[in-house]
């Protein structure tokens, strides 16, 4: 039952490699040596410490946060489709952020608007499904919650379209990039890292209970799991990370879906292994996607979220069909 140490070491090594790649690549290509010197205040310190490292940290943090949210929601709803993007959290965040942009608010307020929008949708979802969170889940309760999220996402999508339609020309480009998920200009990722740490510390001690819950409510209850409290806590933790992630990077899809699936295929579904591995895998995936986004057609920068989906979706499809044939 225990070999995750090797896995975690492997993921940590991959993460380091992804960071190295992110710091080396860019409009000014640096040698690994130059990056190392810059990290300790060498001549390229400006580029590495002020531009690339903060953005890389943000990408990794956001990716890890969304992957953790996806893994938690999948365990909670016992459905491999669940993720923050699909459940409408990103849509809610978009409404909040666009409204703040329309009002001409400063960046901090836009981020706050996004976080509030995401939290509002998750709260609404929790309110609607409060009965289904109970000890004795109604038949189809998890599916109902998932479908409610999809409906909320549709409503948010429609509202976002309306906001875009009435927005002044000058703001459209900024809004569009926000919607596509953009890490350009993100220099402060403390919020997302803090949220990630908090959510992980909340979720990880409950990982084995989540394993039990994945086998059904009746079994979980008879093994002493407080099903209702566990659902609320895990959903709350997922909401915190989602809100922080979308506030930092806008709507980045797919990493919350792909990372847990990738990890599950590799290591199975023991949440004690899966949750930390998901954080690492999500971080690595988004960091790689972001590095591609800002270097592939440099000096032009592509929106990170679009690159993530462009790379993530085919990867997901490949996994899905390999699985189906297997």
């Amino acid at each position, binding site marked *: *039952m225990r070999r995750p140490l090797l896995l975690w070491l492997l993921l940590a090594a991959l993460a380091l490699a992804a960071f190295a790649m992110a710091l080396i690549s860019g409009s000014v290509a640096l040698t690994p040596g130059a990056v190392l010197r810059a990290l300790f205040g060498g001549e390229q310190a400006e580029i590495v410490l002020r531009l690339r490292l903060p953005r890389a940290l943000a990408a990794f943090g956001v990716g890890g946060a969304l992957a953790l949210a996806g893994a938690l929601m999948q365990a909670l709803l016992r459905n491999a489709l669940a993720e923050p993007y699909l459940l409408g959290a990103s849509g809610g965040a978009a409404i909040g952020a666009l409204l703040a942009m329309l009002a001409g608010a400063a960046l901090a307020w836009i981020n706050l608007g996004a976080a509030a929008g995401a939290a509002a949708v998750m709260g609404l979802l929790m309110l609607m499904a409060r009965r289904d969170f109970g000890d004795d889940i109604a038949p189809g309760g998890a599916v109902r919650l998932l479908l409610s999220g999809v409906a909320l996402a549709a409503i948010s999508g429609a509202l976002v379209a309306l906001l875009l339609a009435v927005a002044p020309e000058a703001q459209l480009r900024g809004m569009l990039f926000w919607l596509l998920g953009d890490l350009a200009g993100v220099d402060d990722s403390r919020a997302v890292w803090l949220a990630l740490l908090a959510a992980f510390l909340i979720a990880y001690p409950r990982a*084995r209970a989540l394993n039990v819950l994945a086998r059904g409510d*009746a079994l979980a*209850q008879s093994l*002493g799991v407080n099903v209702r409290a566990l659902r609320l806590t895990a959903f709350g933790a997922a909401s915190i990370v989602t809100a922080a992630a979308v506030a930092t990077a806008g709507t980045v899809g797919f990493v919350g879906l792909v990372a847990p699936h990738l990890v599950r295929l590799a290591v199975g*579904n023991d949440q004690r292994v899966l949750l930390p591995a998901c954080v690492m895998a999500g971080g690595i995936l988004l960091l790689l996607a972001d590095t591609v986004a800002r270097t592939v057609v440099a000096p032009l920068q592509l929106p990170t979220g679009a690159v993530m989906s462009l790379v993530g979706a085919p990867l997901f499809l490949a996994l899905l069909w390999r699985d189906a044939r297997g």
Partner: protein
Amino acid sequence: MADSPLIEARGLMLAVGTRRLVADFSWRAGAGEFWCVLGANGAGKTTLLRALAGLLVPMRGEVLIKGRPLEEWQRHALALERGFVAQHAHDAFDAGVLETALIGRHPHLDPWAWESKADVAAARAVLARVGLQGYEARSVKTLSGGERQRVSLATLLLQDPRICLLDEPTSHQDVAQQAAVSTLLRALAGEGRVVIAALHDINLAARHATHALLLDGAGTVSAGPIAQMLSAENLSRIYRHPMRVVSEQGTDWFFPQTPS
């Protein structure tokens, strides 16, 4: 009953929707007893088992575990005393057989602890006991219904409660496994536990159970030693179908009458 009862119901009333399935049911069971729960489809076997396990709150009355009402028990402490095997297992995600059986250790482990070598060894022994030796690495999603049911049984054995409630543990088993599972349940009772299981095969129940609970689905639950409870008259009443008894060398066999 010499020992104090492990499990007891007092004035229990249970309903599903507007149908009252159990009315004013009082009963007690102690160590060494294997109770089979018999009744027609929809008579309330599952509802009764779930209420006895504390998974649903009765409309009226209470269930006592070791003399203490269910609501006074901490979830964790209760999980060490009573186990429940549902009719169907839900595997949201794929997992190995050994891993799934080890889920039963959950209440025995500290929040941060992982299953120990001793737990894994116990899991292997238990899997062998339910006839799943060599299945440890198999994926639960590749198992047949009967095999999956026996994994659930292994999970229960690893939970190791004194009060075992099982909802149709033999429903997907072939004849040999039905007999094996029934023998195992009888052995569990012999280890100082009380076993309460919904069964459909009356003859299997007659061979292995020590006591029977008969649900007529209209509120009445009759309880007693198996030999007294199993009669053509009682069975005809609860199944609403004429039943015959055939005695052969002192053993009674029960059959539904078929129009010939």
